């Protein structure tokens, strides 16, 4: 039988030390991704370091930034009054994710680090470069209706599944980390790595790096924002395509979900909108111009385009 050690830590530094000492150790937060993937054999960890007792459960507001502890649950953050008032895009993205039962267990840190739902990643009997570098990617010719059309590589087309992360990249959130060498911060837009020829590497995190929180700069008063998610069923389903729009006065920030290998900041669309704030169709077209669909996910190009246009028309129209 696979034996597993379980330790509970009380201090962030202790958590980092536990991991740094053991290459086969992993953090355990709400467990809704980690335990799931361990049960099906996709990830193996010999030692689970339970971080849920760490004092990282606060949501504070220091005037400029909303500071969210890594262990705040999705449901709790969605219910924060300041989120409802000032960050509708964040609230919508949280509440459009998973189910209320999962959201009560799932943490913000864990959400950002959840793994792709690509069925080949999750099925150890099949080929996956992300799970087993060099093994090949069975999704390329396989079941890929829900795979990415942006940020893909010949080695991996797995979609990044998080809704929260899409809202947060649009909001220019910053991730706070504690690593073996001390604390540091990384903007979320630079946090995720597209697959290229190393699909196994998904973020800039190094083994032992603990996400301690996320800082979200509050948009100016009066900013409209929202998150639109299209899916196969009305609730409890990952996005086929989604769009986050933050329409600050004078500038519109946009991100796409469900269609890319990483939470996708739509820079090209933003560039078009900087020149012509209401050129929604052109903005969406520009963002998807280089999309690379495959046999069964070609619809996503059109779906993402329309989702983005709808989201812009809803929140960025004057």
């Amino acid at each position: 039988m696979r034996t597993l050690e379980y330790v509970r830590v009380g201090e962030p530094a202790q958590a980092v030390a536990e991991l740094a000492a053991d290459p086969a150790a992993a953090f355990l937060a709400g467990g809704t991704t980690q335990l799931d993937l361990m049960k099906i054999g996709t990830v193996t960890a010999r030692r689970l370091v339970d971080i849920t007792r760490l004092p990282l459960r606060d949501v504070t507001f220091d005037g400029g930034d909303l500071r969210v502890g890594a262990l705040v649950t999705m449901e709790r953050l969605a219910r924060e009054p300041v989120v409802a008032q000032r960050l509708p895009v964040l609230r919508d993205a949280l509440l459009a994710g998973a189910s209320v039962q999962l959201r009560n267990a799932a943490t913000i840190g864990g959400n950002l680090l959840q793994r792709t739902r690509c069925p080949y990643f999750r099925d150890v009997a099949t080929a996956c470069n992300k799970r087993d570098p060099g093994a090949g990617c069975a999704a390329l010719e396989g079941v890929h209706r829900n795979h990415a059309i942006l940020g893909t590589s010949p080695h991996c087309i797995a979609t990044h599944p998080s809704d929260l992360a899409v809202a947060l990249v649009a909001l220019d959130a910053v991730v706070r980390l504690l690593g073996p060498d001390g604390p540091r911060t990384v903007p979320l837009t630079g946090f995720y790595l597209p697959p290229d020829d190393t699909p196994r590497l998904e973020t800039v995190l190094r083994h032992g790096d603990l996400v301690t929180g996320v800082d979200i700069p509050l948009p100016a008063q009066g900013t409209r924002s929202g998150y639109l998610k299209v899916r196969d069923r009305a609730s409890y389903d990952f996005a086929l395509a989604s769009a986050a729009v933050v329409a600050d006065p004078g500038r519109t920030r946009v991100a796409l979900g469900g269609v890319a290998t990483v939470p996708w900041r739509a820079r090209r669309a933003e560039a078009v909108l900087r020149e012509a704030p209401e050129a929604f169709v052109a903005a969406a077209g520009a963002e998807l111009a280089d999309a690379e669909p495959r046999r069964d996910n070609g619809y996503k190009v059109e779906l993402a385009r329309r989702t983005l246009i709808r989201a812009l028309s809803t929140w960025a129209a004057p």
Partner: protein
Amino acid sequence: MTRTLAPLVGAALDRVDGARKVAGAAPYPNDVRYPDLAYAALVRATISAGRVSGIETEGAEGAPGVLTVITHLTAPRLSRGPATSIGPQPTPPLQGDRVDYDGQYLAVVVAGTREQAVAAADLVEVRYEVDEPVLRTEDPRAEREENPWHFDTTRGDPAGALRTAEVRVDSTYTTPHLTNNPLGPFTTVARWDGDDLTVHDSTQHTANTRSALAGVFGIPEERVRVLAPFVGGGFGAGLRSWPHVTVAAMAARVVGRPVALELTRPEMFTGTGGRPSTVQRIRLGSTVDGRLVAIDHHAEYPAAMDDAVRYRVTPRGAGAYACPNFAARDVQVRLNVPPTGHMRAPGTAEGLFALECALDELAFRLDIDPVDLRLRNVAEVDPENGRPWTTTGLRECYRVGAERFGWYGRSPAPCSMRDGHRMVGYGMAGVTFGWTMMPCRAAATLHPDGTATIATSATDIGTGTYTILTQLAADLLDLPPDWVRVELGDTRLPKAPAAGGSGLTAAVTNAVQDACRNLLEIVRNGHPRGTDVRAEGASAPPEREDVAPSGAFAAVFAEVRVDPDLGELRVVRLVTAVDGGRIMNPKLAASQIIGGTVGGLGMALMERTTPDPGSGRIMNANLGDYLVPVHADVPDVDVLFVGGPDPLTPMGVKGVGEVGVVGVAPAVANAVHHATGRRLRALPLTVENLL
């Protein structure tokens, strides 16, 4: 003395087993424990075709707690059990090195705990010689069996009538492979005492599991006892005795201890059947005023390589429309897919999807209201044999359903109704469901304390059999309902047919009525005080040459909203009117129709079992990726019952088990056409088709 069926029969009694179930006190097969119980875990094939060239079991055998590892090299030789009314038994497991589908059992590990068994199963290493699997019905290598079960029918001259018809529809419809997914993972707990085998099993048909196991192990049926007092749902998955049932019994025999084998969710996808995918070509011919002159329906669908399932997609009697010329042809194509089975109105749901959508196409072509088109073509007699139906509530279903729904308030042209930016569509479908009844026995016992027990081997898979038999016996014996105990799901009890084919209620209520009558007869004639009085009763399908037994009829009406930009489809309203003969309990019957409607919604909107196109391996074999409707997908479902007792049997019951499922997908697809002008001929109706 004559007892009347009142006040309880027909009353909305709450489920008598409800409190036990919510308290966790109802023993399901996976609750069964024996002191020396061992646990089994399966090793499954990861290729779809080929042979096992080597299987390494040493690591598993040496793992903690492992009692044995059984493979095709070490398994006892088994026979195939006797065929039943739904066809031959599945191929017995672990009998050779051939691999015919991904998911086929290659070994079973038995250990002291479930965790030990699962961990050791991981250590079994299998080597294969891989063949190119046959995965598509159009593959020229695929073996095709025309008219496999001799259901094909031709009446009149459909080809000629099609040629000369004033108006024609010729369309091809497809439906995907679906998986039943009852909530309760199927479990078998098997125990041998010498040559006596006791099996606790998730089955819808205890008698079938018994005869299957007796046949497999070559022992008399009387030595096999099958228990299934509670089953966590089935949707047809429990109609066959699947290989894992045999594996559990085999393992128990080998280790000399009782063995529990609980399937995992992924194993449920390959080990308990499912609805095969279909491709159906349907041709209709009609006069300009909407009288059908020809129906030609052809269906093709897979069957597993080394398996045979009695199946029929093209509806009997051309779906009971009055049409002089019709042809129905089924073709089964052998593929390297997991054994198919029966799922929520098997065959009929797929077949009526094609037929009822094609009729909608015809109505649109003719500019005739879809309800009116169907009313013009109602078969007043059974088209298959010309006999009058025992009851015909179909017109009433259309009338009552349309009225409740407000059908005639629609503007008939497609794309003509809106709700804000969303397109609104109304669609409908009619259903004539087949009649089934099998012989059934039951016993009634009156105890000295005045209470009574009703007993039959039938199962209650969540549908309410315990409750309706309580109601029935209470009325017949003139007792309060809590003085009646119902015992089910045990082959030691009088033999009952499957909870399937919408046929159990008719069979079992008539048998129980007979048993109660016989009991009262004995009581009337005097009997010794202080002892139990027991009587048996039976029912059998009446053999009538003069009438055609009618199953349930229904009309389904759906309202949808489609976002024209994003392609999102939501069903916002559903009305189903059903003629189910006598309704034993309107609350439970409505629940059954609502449940069926949700299953139909899943079929319409999202359900699909997705194989890897190259390997055939199912890539969404879990409830995270295989989507079923959640609450937010299910609108108000309005269920209306029309008609009354059917004169065919004393109880007048027709059965409402499956009728709720079948009309939903076509009604929704037709509503989508009305909303958008798009005719979607492939299920499920997902976003990419509506952009």
